[in-house]
Structure formats: C-alpha cells, structure tokens
C-alpha cells in the first residue's frame, strides 16, 4: 500500500512538474538545494525504517523543514556573499551516502542470511536423505 502510494505520488508529481510553468533561473539554485534536502530526508526515512526507528512526524518535519531551511540558508549566503549552499550540499550528500550505506548493509546482510539458510536447508535435506 505504501509502495502504491509512492508510485502514484511520483507519477502525479511528474505530471504536475512537466505541466508546471517554467520558473526563473534565479530560483534554480534554491530549488536544487531543496531537492537535495528532500532526497536526504527520503533516504534518512528509509534508513530509519530499516532501523525500526521510523516516525512519520519526524520524517515529514525533516522532509519539509530541511528543504525550507536549506533554501533560507542559501538566500542568507547570497546576502552575505558566502556560498553556504555548498556546505549544505556537502552535508546532505554525505548524510545520503551514510544512509545509503546503512540500507545497503542491511540488505546485503539480509540476502547473505537468506542464501545461508537456503544452503543449510539443502544440507539438512541431503543429510536427512
């Protein structure tokens, strides 16, 4: 059910995005940083599901809060003539890789366990024979 929601949401989002009016190039850097922040939240969410610490409130607040905060930081950086968005991107991408590492390790362990159990089952069956 959640997967269906994700697929349907993605399709609707893609449709809206394609048909939406083109925004000015000036705001593209803000939008890009918001996307990075949102993606970081998504991977964080998946990692927290794996770790069984998932909380919808934390996920949603992180999803929108991080995006908005990243945009605000970028604006502040432009006002101060400091490229703060670079720091934000570094942090977000670093966290994305950390979360991806967690997810990968979880699935690799899961699959190795499965293969191991399959093999042991086979051995047991052979032994029984």
């Amino acid at each position: 059910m959640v997967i269906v929601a994700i697929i349907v949401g993605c399709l609707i989002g893609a449709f809206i995005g394609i048909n939406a009016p083109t925004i000015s190039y000036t705001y593209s850097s803000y939008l890009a940083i918001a996307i990075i922040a949102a993606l970081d939240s998504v991977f964080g969410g998946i990692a927290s599901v794996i770790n069984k610490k998932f909380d919808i409130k934390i996920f949603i607040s992180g999803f929108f809060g991080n995006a908005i905060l990243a945009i605000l930081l970028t604006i502040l950086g432009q006002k101060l003539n400091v490229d703060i968005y670079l720091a934000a991107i570094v942090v977000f991408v670093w966290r994305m890789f950390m979360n991806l590492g967690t997810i990968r390790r979880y699935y690799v362990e899961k699959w190795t366990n499965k293969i191991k159990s399959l093999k042991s089952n086979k051995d047991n069956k052979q032994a029984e024979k």
Partner: protein
Amino acid sequence: MKHIKKGKITLTIVIGIACIALTTVMFMQFKMVNQTDIDELEVMREEELRTELAEWKNKYEEAENQYNSQLAKLEEYNQKEESETETAELVQKELDEVNLLLGKTDVEGEGIIITLKENSEAESGIITSDNLNMIVNNLKEAGAEAISINEQRIVNMSDIVTVNDVIIRVNQQRILTPYIIKAIGNQSYLESAMSGNGSEVDKLQKLGHDIKIEKDNKVQIPKYDKDLKSDYIE
C-alpha cells in the same frame, strides 16, 4: 487493529504527498535546466555577468583607444592636406601675378587709346618703327602697365622693327596702318605724356599725320600669344 489501519492510511497519504512534492519540484528543475541556455544573459549568475562585463569593458576601452588614435591620425592628415591646399593656392596666386606681369593674360583697366593714321602726303612720309618705339617708350615712362600695338601685346622681349623700310613688324607680326596703340595706366599721366609739346605724338601730328588720343575706362589688352622661350639661358 483499527488504530493501526488508520495510522497506515495517514502514513500512505503523507508519503504520497511527499512524493508528489518531491517529484514535482524535481521535474520542474529538470525542465528548467533543459530549457535554459547557459550562455543567455538573463540566466547568468552574477559572477559570470561580472567577468563578462569586465571583459567587454576591456574590449570597449581597447576599441576606444584605437578609435582615438585613428581619429588623431585623421586629424593630422586633414591638417596636412589643408596646409598643402594653402601652399597650392599661394603658388597659384603667385603664378597668376607673374603671368599678369609677364603679359600672359588678357588685361583690362583704365587707360588711353592712340590711333595713328598714316598720311602718305605728309612731309616726312611714313610712320616708322622708330616713331612707334618712341611712343611706347614714352608710354612706359609715363607709367603704363600694359601696352599693345594693333592687338600685339608689348612685353619685355617684344620687337618693333622696320623691314625693308616698308613693313613694320611687332612681335614678328606685320602690322598695317592705322596703328592703334593701347595702354593701361594713369589716364592723365599717359595723356599728358602723349599730347605734351615736343612729344613724339605732337611731332607726328605736326608732320601731318592724323592722330587721335582717347581716354577709356575699360581698355582691353590681349595677352602675349607667343611662347616665352628660354632655350639659351642657363
């Protein structure tokens, strides 16, 4: 059980909304990045614009410098040309003056016209080149600026000679009676020099020749129409 289901529905909806938001923004960004031309002025970042501006400024300054130097050169050429025309004008003016003095141009001015009609029955017979020479000399003395005999301009190399005691030649051209001598100069000086007692004209008149002296404010004297050669002057 019901509580769990309710929680799951809200979770689904919330995640769906999050997905919608994320993909919408992503696709908007994709579309925008695809559509924008990175070299267009409107979409450039401030730093890029700044460097571009500096470049153009440099180019502009360079071009301006070039333009100024070319302008200065042009000005120089113009001045040179101007001075050259001035010189040319000056030379032309001098040439005109010299021509005027040499008798190479037609001239006009106040003066007198003397008409000598030979009277073959006069005591001393014909008018000779000596008479004409004398008259011309007298005119010169009286300040004549241009003289002609029968439309032959008298210049410094003009000859007035008698050939075979009959023919009078001026500028190697035969002339016949009546002799019309024109002179440009101060009218009263010329006239008094001509008609004064004891003058050449007076003498001829007394000898019986028909002589007339007229004043004219517009005496026209033609130019010397031969070449002023200088084959032997070194």
